[in-house]
């Protein structure tokens, strides 16, 4: 669902000097840990928005603008009579103004002693941006006590402003009530009230919320309604005995919209989330979830944000799952902290009670496909020119009974890395130093385990001008293994010392160019990279964390075709590439980038992974890549890897997108990896006819001759409500698919009912959602 408004750090609460910008992002920890820079925004409590500048009934005639001095009453009419200091009676298009109130009526009596006005005959009251009209109003202006009979009202509400989002206009809502009581400054109480964001006149709005009473308190900025029924096209669809919500979009404790759904594994499902706003920088969402086939599951999520730290803890507990017949639970925690002066740390713990927990209980696709649950703690220090990090990491591996058993990765308890850059050595020399100490351990007794220490100093001499650079580099990659357990027959202490020499050079050419009448900047950037790594026999070395890296533009200029530290490929090769960019000279933004790359091997490859044929031959694969945003919503992205030796395509991806405006979108993609995958992927969203728009995705695999994932959906938006009907089918195992049906009714600016397909649509149809998802959620992201 939509996310919660961002937490705000209340400096007073923390006794610290006020922060400059409350939403300053917590510094990203070093290394690959994803940075949660924008806190997820809590799901929106059921709001009854307030205040719209557009009154239900336009005021009879232009109202003079100048506001009376405080306490002074201005009356204007066709006839005024009265006793000075006692009473004033006005008739005919009466306009009374006092303070922020503008009151219009056919007939009006103002009693000075009680400062009370009694207005009858299409009475129209406007305060700031609230507007109410009705037959009869009696009210003490100063105290603002009184009542309004059968008013029609229009109230407005500041929108939820998401950081970095274009401002959204206010949500306006209107309705009618049997009676409105003014209960003091800025406090209204409507009884037998209806409310809707539909612009139509009060009696034929497509939907409205009916409540026995609705009280709005602008001082406390809170609203409470009881006995609320939501009626859609005449049919009551939701009843809630009591509802409270915030008037200014601040987070407010209250029940969120219950969601009802169902899956084949768990039967009917109902969740009633309660949002608890503990403090400006702490909140929690507790949502008991009833699963008809399994029992009652308690789901909780707690978020906190403090001076330099933030985090989220989520937990689920299902006592006595009737299908599984046993207790089941899950836990996830993400904590990040900046200790100041360069120190920082993060904790990312995830655990489930059994292997099939996700496939049985969770509907979020990203969990189904996950088999390794990360458990990791990091501490790091960044001293500017050098930084170090200590990490402890394990994975919980979930075995899927229908699949061959997945390999269990090594634990790294701990891993200490060091990296330093001294760019200012004499004669322009630059020292890069990378060090690593890791203690690997593994439950399988037949696998090697022990400590690996690596030190890799490199000296380089970057010669650089604006257009040209030449960077010779020489380094010594030294690694030692002290193994507690080793494959029988191999030594337990091993070493590998390899000198690495490389020369990187590049030239940048530029020229002005005209395209479609726009003058652009076109660059041509050839690059040559020579790498020499002598052969070292590494067959005795264990394989802890090493694998073959995809062959792409990031890899062809790196020193090793393997990732991790257990294998250092021998190399004597020259890599050539040329990149051409088209740049908008005004903003400097890159519109088109085309790159070609090739590598020439002077010697065969000897260091291999088990089961991998060593490469012979001199020509590496050709690499080509192109990304282009061509304007009017067109963009292309394509990459190709061609193997000239065996004259076959290793990898070819193409994806195009046409998105002239939000709501109109077509994606077309083809992904091919030799012997691994050949898929097409079409997705899009397009208006069909008035108000209706279709959304869909078709991801077909030619290799397996079946649809991997397909979506078909229809969305209707009538301006004040919208509905989505989406069918989603996903291949979950060889020959097995799981399909889900989403029906959702969204009362714009009010609430959403039914199962929410928005997350799934955003993932499946890129460009469907307008905002970029926050960094990778912990396993149980926001509702």
């Amino acid at each position: 669902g939509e996310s919660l408004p961002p937490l705000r750090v209340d400096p007073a609460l923390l006794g610290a000097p006020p922060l400059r910008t409350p939403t300053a992002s917590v510094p990203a920890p070093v290394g690959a840990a994803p940075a949660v820079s924008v806190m997820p925004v809590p799901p929106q409590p059921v709001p009854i928005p307030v205040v719209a500048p557009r009154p239900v009934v336009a005021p009879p005639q232009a109202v003079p603008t100048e506001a009376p001095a405080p306490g002074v009453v201005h009356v204007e009419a066709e006839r005024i009579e009265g006793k000075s200091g006692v009473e004033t009676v006005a008739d005919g298009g009466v306009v009374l103004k006092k303070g922020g109130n503008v009151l219009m009526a056919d007939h009006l009596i103002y009693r000075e002693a009680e400062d009370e006005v009694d207005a009858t005959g299409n009475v129209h009251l406007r305060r700031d941006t609230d507007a109410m009209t009705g037959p009869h109003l009696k009210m003490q202006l100063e105290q603002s006590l009184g009542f309004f009979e059968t008013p029609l009202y229009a109230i407005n509400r500041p929108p939820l402003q998401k950081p970095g989002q274009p401002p959204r206009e206010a949500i306006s809502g209107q309705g009618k009530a049997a009676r409105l009581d003014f209960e003091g400054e800025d406090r209204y109480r409507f009884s037998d009230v209806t409310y809707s964001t539909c612009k139509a006149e009060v009696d034929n709005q497509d939907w409205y919320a009916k409540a026995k009473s609705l009280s709005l308190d602008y001082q406390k900025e809170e609203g409470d309604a009881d006995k609320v029924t939501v009626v859609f096209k005449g049919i009551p669809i939701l009843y809630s005995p009591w509802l409270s919500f915030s008037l200014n979009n601040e987070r407010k404790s209250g029940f969120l919209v219950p969601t009802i759904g169902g899956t084949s594994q768990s039967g009917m499902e109902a969740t009633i989330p309660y949002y608890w706003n503990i403090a400006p920088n702490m909140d929690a969402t507790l949502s008991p979830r009833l699963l008809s086939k399994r029992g009652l599951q308690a789901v909780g999520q707690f978020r906190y944000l403090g001076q330099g730290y933030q985090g989220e803890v989520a937990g689920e507990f299902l006592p006595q799952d009737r299908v599984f017949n046993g207790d089941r639970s899950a836990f996830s925690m993400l904590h990040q902290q900046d200790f100041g002066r360069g120190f920082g740390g993060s904790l990312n713990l995830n655990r489930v009670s059994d292997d099939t927990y996700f496939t049985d209980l969770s509907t979020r696709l990203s969990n189904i496909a996950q088999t390794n649950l990360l458990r990791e703690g990091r501490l790091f220090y960044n001293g500017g020119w050098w930084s170090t990090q200590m990490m402890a990491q394990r994975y919980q591996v979930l075995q899927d009974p229908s699949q061959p058993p997945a390999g269990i990765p090594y634990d790294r308890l701990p891993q200490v890395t060091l990296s330093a850059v001294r760019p200012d050595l004499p004669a322009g020399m630059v020292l890069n130093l990378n060090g690593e100490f890791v203690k690997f351990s593994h439950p399988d007794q037949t696998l090697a385990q022990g400590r690996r220490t690596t030190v890799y100093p490199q000296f380089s001499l970057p010669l650089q001008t604006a257009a040209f650079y030449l960077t010779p580099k020489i380094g010594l990659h030294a690694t030692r293994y002290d193994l507690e357990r080793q494959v029988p027959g191999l030594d337990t202490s091993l070493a590998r010392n390899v000198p690495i020499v490389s020369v990187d050079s590049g030239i940048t050419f530029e020229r002005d160019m005209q395209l479609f009448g726009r003058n652009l900047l076109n660059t041509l950037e050839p690059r040559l990279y020579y790498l020499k790594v002598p052969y070292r026999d590494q067959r005795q070395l264990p394989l802890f964390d090493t694998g073959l890296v995809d062959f792409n533009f990031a890899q062809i200029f790196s020193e090793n075709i393997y990732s991790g530290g257990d294998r250092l490929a021998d190399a004597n090769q020259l890599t050539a590439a040329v990149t051409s960019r088209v740049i908008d000279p005004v903003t400097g933004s890159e519109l088109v980038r085309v790159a070609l790359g090739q590598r020439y091997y002077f010697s065969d490859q000897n260091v291999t992974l088990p089961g991998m044929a060593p490469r012979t031959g001199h020509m590496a694969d050709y690499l080509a890549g192109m990304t282009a945003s061509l304007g009017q919503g067109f963009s292309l992205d394509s990459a190709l890897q061609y193997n000239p030796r065996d004259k076959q395509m290793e990898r070819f991806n193409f994806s195009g997108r046409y998105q002239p405006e939000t709501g109109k979108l077509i994606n077309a993609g083809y992904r091919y990896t030799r012997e691994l995958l050949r898929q097409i992927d079409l997705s899009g969203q397009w208006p069909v006819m008035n108000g209706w728009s279709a959304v869909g995705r078709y991801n077909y695999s030619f290799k397996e001759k079946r649809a991997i994932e397909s979506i078909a959906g229809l969305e209707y938006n009538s301006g004040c409500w919208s509905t989505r009907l989406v069918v989603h089918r996903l291949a979950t195992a060889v020959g097995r698919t799981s399909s889900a049906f989403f029906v959702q009714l969204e009362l714009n600016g009010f609430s959403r009912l039914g199962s929410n397909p928005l997350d799934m649509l955003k993932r499946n149809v890129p460009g469907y959602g307008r905002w970029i998802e926050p960094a990778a959620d912990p396993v149980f992201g926001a509702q």
Partner: protein
Amino acid sequence: CGFQLRGSSDLPFETLYIALPESSELHAQLARTVQASSRTRVVGSAAEAQAVFAVTADNQSKNILSLSSAGRVREYELVRSFAFRVHDAKGQELVPAGQIVLRRDISFADDQILSKENEEALLRRDMQNDLVQQLLRRFTAAKQLQK
């Protein structure tokens, strides 16, 4: 064909303050690159800087790109969406506020999770190098603006 060597890449400001925590890798890298390829100096506080580089959004995400027929993730797409502003002491914009989105694909297999984690770090570093180069382009482009 009209190509000539790229001219000097001076920036429209002599001193720059990078409004990022000291412990962020991007801060160290951007500072190194700016000072290596132009005469601009990176200073320690906004007060003494002609220009302040402020990050308005920096989201890194990892989206599933393709699934195997067994419903397992086969490829991820690493995305980094970066938005920034460069303004002077009075808040005047020196470089037009912009957004840079970087994408890299990475194949995935469940049993190579450790090596894929290292590969992801390699790609994230490559994205950051690309980001820093594009930022430099944006700064130098703003120079033409001033002329």
